[in-house]
């Protein structure tokens, strides 16, 4: 299975003399790897840690709430009201701190001193949000717990918004209108990638009992909870505690004819980012995994079938050579091994092209909300991820599997041809 310079030279000769087949083989492999890398990368981008979401592996989310009505089939669900959020998720054992915040940013219209209105992504967050997530503060400060609780009208905005709204970077103390309500700018943070699903935003406003929205007797609202776990905390234990608190809440609510319906909360970052469930049902993680496996399988099998027939026609014109090799002492097994290993090189070549494509694609995808190439090279999560040795190792694994699937049959057929017929260039199969 070794590759020496002769084999490599022969491979290049072989590829150059069948340009069409070579191109189809290479683009086929590249396309397959590109698709697979993109799917995997998207998945990875949901869960890998990067600023400002460097704590992702240690986070759990109390995302939403469903309340049922006793004596009726109906129920109502959305993010939580402030007080049930506190009751269910405040000071859980194994949790270092928790923050109340809007897990999804909201579109709003903002206006600064330039007088030009901008459509912005706005998010209400409390003081702990700034501790759990690691934004980079460029100017000023974040709001503290007292200001938060008081519902003070202050805002932390992104660098880009400072430029857009004020044409200026020294904007501390300036007033920004968000939905026609004035807020005082107290801090400016560095822009964040839109891939930071839970922490990115243009404008951050204080979240508290006073500012949270509330309906359904305060049960529902716009509050979600993010919890930063202590090192080595047991997620199952925390879930069980939350479940117990649901039961307590249920007895409290019974008087009002309501019952909170438990949906396996709190979730980890992968579950939240993948979505695919509503506020009134439980995420189906095993179903999701099954779906993913089928996707990967299809992404592997379709091109493998194609590549297989490509390889078959590539080696057809070499039957005579294989016959000669057999005559001079090459065993069937060795012949098969040589064909497969040779094809592996082609697969890796195609995979490299596909990998480069996904690199370019993901860089432009995650480069949203980035300014200039400096930023992109510096801390684009996609780049860090695609250069990760584990991913590269996996890519090599994918090539290997793709190669085994596509090359085995043609190689076996080639090794089975009768030696004499092979030498004379006849192939019965």
């Amino acid at each position, binding site marked *: 299975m070794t590759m*020496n310079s*002769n084999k490599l*030279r*022969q491979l290049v*000769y*072989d590829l150059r*003399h069948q340009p069409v087949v070579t191109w189809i083989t290479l683009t086929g492999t590249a396309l397959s790897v590109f698709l697979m890398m993109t799917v995997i990368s998207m998945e990875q981008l949901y869960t890998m840690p990067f600023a400002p979401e460097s704590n992702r592996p240690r986070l759990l989310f109390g995302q939403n709430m469903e309340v049922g009505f006793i004596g009726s089939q109906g129920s109502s669900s959305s993010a939580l009201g402030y007080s049930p959020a506190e009751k269910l998720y405040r000071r859980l054992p194994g949790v270092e701190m928790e923050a109340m915040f809007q897990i999804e940013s909201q579109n709003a219209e903002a206006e600064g001193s330039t007088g030009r209105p901008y459509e912005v992504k706005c998010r209400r967050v409390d003081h702990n949000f700034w501790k759990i997530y690691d934004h980079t503060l460029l100017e000023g400060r974040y709001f503290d717990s007292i200001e938060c609780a008081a519902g003070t009208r202050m805002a932390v905005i992104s660098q880009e918004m400072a430029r857009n709204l004020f044409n200026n970077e020294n904007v501390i103390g300036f007033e920004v209108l968000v939905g026609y309500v004035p807020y005082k700018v107290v801090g400016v943070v560095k822009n964040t990638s839109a891939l930071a699903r839970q922490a990115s935003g243009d404008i951050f406003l204080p979240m508290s009992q006073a500012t949270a929205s509330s309906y359904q007797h305060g049960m529902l609202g716009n509050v979600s909870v993010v919890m930063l776990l202590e090192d080595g905390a047991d997620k199952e234990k925390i879930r069980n505690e939350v479940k117990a608190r649901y039961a307590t809440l249920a007895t409290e609510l019974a008087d009002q004819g309501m019952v909170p319906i438990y949906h396996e909360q709190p979730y980890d970052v992968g579950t939240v980012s993948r979505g695919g469930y509503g506020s009134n049902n439980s995420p189906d993680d095993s179903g999701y995994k099954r779906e993913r496996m089928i996707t990967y399988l299809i992404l592997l099998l379709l091109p493998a079938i194609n590549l297989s027939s490509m390889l078959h026609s590539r080696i057809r014109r070499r039957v*005579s*050579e294989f*016959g*000669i*090799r*057999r*005559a*001079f*002492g*090459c*065993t*069937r*097994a*060795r012949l098969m091994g040589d064909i497969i290993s040779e094809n592996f090189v082609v697969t890796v070549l195609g995979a490299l092209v596909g990998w480069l494509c996904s690199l370019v694609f993901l860089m432009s995808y995650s480069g949203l909300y980035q300014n200039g190439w400096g930023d992109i090279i510096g801390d684009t999560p996609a780049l860090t991820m695609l250069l990760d040795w584990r991913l590269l190792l996996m890519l090599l694994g994918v090539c290997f599997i793709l190669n085994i699937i596509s090359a085995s049959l043609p190689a076996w057929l080639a090794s089975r041809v*009768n*030696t*004499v017929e092979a*030498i004379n260039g006849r192939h019965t199969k």
Partner: protein
Amino acid sequence: MSIISLKEVSKLYRTKEIETMALENINLDIEEGEFVSIMGPSGCGKSTLLNIMGLLDSASSGSVDILDCNVGKLGDSASARFRNANLGFVFQSFHLIPSLNVAANVELPLVYRSGVSAAERRRMVQEVLERLGMSHRIKHLPTQLSGGQCQRVAIARAIVGKPKIVLADEPTGNLDSRMGAEVMSLLHRLNKEDGTTVVMVTHNEEQARQTDRIIRFFDGHIVS
């Protein structure tokens, strides 16, 4: 004991339409160091005989002993090893590998032999090409060579591993008479200098007369 010994060897080709008895109860002994030529009209089974002696094909019945080994019983890898160690092949249409240069073509049998280092392979290739007067073409591709040169490279490939037996199926069939004579003298040198046993199929009476023994074939039988 003969170096090649065939007893009651038959070969039956079966296709959907017809059955062809290519060899019928052949008994043949070839001694070590002999230069034997096989003659006969086209389709009489000469190549079939050579292929069976070369372990490239198997007999339908009968026994084949080469170097005191009953080769009919060998499995794929054992027979590959046996060919590699003891047999060299020369074909009418050379059958060089077009994508490999002269050195790599000649090296082929050594690649499949265990325990030969790359340096040693290079040395052996160099040596055999010098012997056959082809060392100045070592980097050429087969397409850059004349027919006679191709056949010389093919002979180099056949003997680089120092086999006991060389099987040549119409080695001069594709060459003009001058080049044919050159190839014949190479085979004779090989036979004289190294004591290699040569079995050659030919249509050329004059070439055949220069060998130790002529075996005449007709329709699957030895006639003389």
